[in-house]
């Protein structure tokens, strides 16, 4: 019967677990963050050349490696170019919440971050980022025609869903290898400074959360406690063969026995120092008696001095 119950429980657990699984693709840690197709006077590479670029952002709070990943680009159907990000370059590791910039200059011999393709300045560019297992991590179609020279197509903020054209204006500036929006303040803190300068709001909300947390524990363990007492009482009644509840209550079934309370009280009494009487402070040095043994005798442990005969 017990096995059957366990079986049913495990089956239900499995069923619930399976039901909660969805086909939803797990969120990728590496995403395409900003793309600039027509670079006339924007950021230049180490060779002093102005080329289009693709910025990849690590959304995670752990270091991610791009080595072995693929960047695929297509501007007209059927002309997909694939760039294999070389292995063995330590710079392909992107620290948490940082960026990596790839130059679309068609010159892969210039280094790891120079791809074998060039982005179209007039047509739509489809860009796909694949992991080393050839699974698509992120893709974007950069609309052609709407981007002027030195303008980029980027996520509004790092890793955000929405994209916009960064026209290098005061608010929408092009940001190769840095955050799409510079964070100059702590908005949460500023909110508190603005709306709750005295701190009353924080006090009330935070104390409510603390109380809710401990009230939940209280409610839970009040229920558990009652259940435990009931079970103990029922077991005690079974052991003593008592069926009458009033009798069980009278005999104190399910409550801590008096000896336990006495033991706790005694322990507390002792902990307060009652276990020590007044110690005598006079030191007496008494002679230590050592009984004779040939094993400890000095004469047997000394070697005899060699003498000439």
């Amino acid at each position: 019967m017990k096995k059957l119950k366990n079986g049913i429980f495990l089956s239900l657990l499995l069923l619930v677990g399976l039901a909660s699984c969805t086909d939803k693709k797990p969120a990728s840690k590496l995403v395409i963050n900003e793309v600039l197709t027509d670079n006339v006077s924007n950021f230049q590479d180490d060779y002093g050349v102005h080329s289009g670029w693709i910025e990849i952002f690590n959304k995670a709070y752990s270091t991610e490696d791009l080595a072995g990943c693929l960047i695929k680009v297509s501007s007209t159907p059927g002309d997909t170019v694939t760039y294999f990000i070389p292995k063995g370059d330590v710079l392909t590791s992107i620290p948490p919440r940082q960026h990596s910039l790839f130059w679309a200059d068609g010159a892969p011999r210039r280094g790891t971050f120079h791809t074998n393709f060039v982005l179209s300045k007039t047509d739509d560019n489809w860009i796909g980022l694949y992991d080393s297992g050839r699974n698509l991590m992120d893709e974007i179609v950069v609309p052609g025609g709407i981007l002027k020279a030195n303008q980029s197509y980027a996520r509004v903020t790092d890793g955000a869903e929405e994209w916009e054209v960064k026209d290098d204006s005061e608010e929408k500036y092009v940001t190769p290898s840095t955050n799409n929006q510079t964070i100059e303040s702590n908005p949460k803190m500023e909110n508190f400074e603005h709306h709750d300068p005295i701190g009353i709001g924080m006090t009330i909300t935070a104390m409510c959360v603390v109380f809710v947390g401990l009230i939940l524990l209280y409610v839970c363990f009040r229920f558990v406690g009652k259940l435990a007492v009931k079970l103990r009482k029922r077991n005690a009644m079974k052991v003593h063969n008592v069926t009458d509840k009033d009798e069980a209550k009278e005999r104190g079934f399910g409550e801590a026995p008096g000896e336990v309370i006495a033991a706790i009280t005694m322990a507390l009494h002792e902990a307060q120092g009652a276990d020590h009487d007044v110690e005598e402070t006079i030191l007496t040095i008494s002679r230590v008696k050592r009984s004779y043994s040939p094993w400890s005798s000095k004469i047997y442990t000394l070697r005899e001095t060699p003498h000439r005969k």
Partner: protein
Amino acid sequence: MGDFLNFLQNNLADFWTYTGFYNATVGHVVMILVGIFFIYLAVAKEFEPMLLIPIGFGILVGNIPFNLDAGLQVGIYEEGSVLNILYQGVTSGWYPPLIFLGIGAMTDFSALISNPKLMLIGAAAQFGIFGAYIAALWLGFDPMQAASIGIIGGADGPTAIFLSSKLAPNLMGAIAVSAYSYMALVPVIQPPVMRLLTTKKERLIRMKTPRAVSHTEKVMFPIVGLLLTCFLVPSGLPLLGMLFFGNLLKESGVTRRLAETARGPLIDTITMLLGLTVGASTQASEFLTWDSLKIFALGAFSFIVATASGVLFVKIFNLMLKKDDKINPLIGNAGVSAVPDSARISQIVGAEYDPGNYLLMHAMGPNVAGVIGSAVAAGVLLGFLV
């Protein structure tokens, strides 16, 4: 010969500029005296010796003057120095959760489980945190700094270090030293507040004997505790997760060796390193500021508010309880989570008025609830401000 003597003289003069005597400032002397005072308190008065000896000695270590421009890599703030490497446990916040692991493995939550309403006292005492938060804002600290200072009122050193390392790393030294100092001074701070806010009749209340708690309940507590509190405040996970994990090691009954390591060698090692490095982080140049003085004043204030709010909460709570279920308000102070000192204070003050009234076991309830409460409060502050 003259050249050689000249060479020796220059060498000695150069060496002199490296010595502590040459580089000492009044600030160093003041801090060294503070360190010696801490050691005195620990040795002569036995105030929290496990904390004050490492911190006091750490203050001495951190305030040995040396030539900062020499690049000797000995100071705690010099990257790559031994002390700096040990200090990483504080700045990256991984010492406090390990301490919580040990605390969990040595804490018996039975008193709380047998009388769960005592948890609410642990929650009420957290008003100390927010009282100090309001006062710190009033004194001109920004919300993040104020939250870090406020957490001193939680009377929980590891929590204070954990939160300040995230919100206000520049104030961490002063906050940690203040938190630990006031925890050591609980026997001085709390009794007058307790006596002031209670009547003689209230101090004589005898509470019902707590019921025996079953093994199942004890095993359930860390699991349910973790799920309930961390679902509500996930930002408290490092502290609460380790606290309840340590407790499960203890209560499961099948991982005795792990529990003994957690509550023995592990917590001892971390306590030494934490105390020493926190003490050493109080370099005079960084520590002796007006802000530090304000933090010390706010720390005392937060302890007083926390004690008062715990005691007053019990008094109000008693109005709703039946005559037999009344709680002695003298255990209200134990909501301040300085375990087990504040519970011991409840016992001592209670015994002054009725020597046969054993409040210690009752006071342990709010005391450990205070640990949970302050960790939850830290999680809330972290969630709100980061």
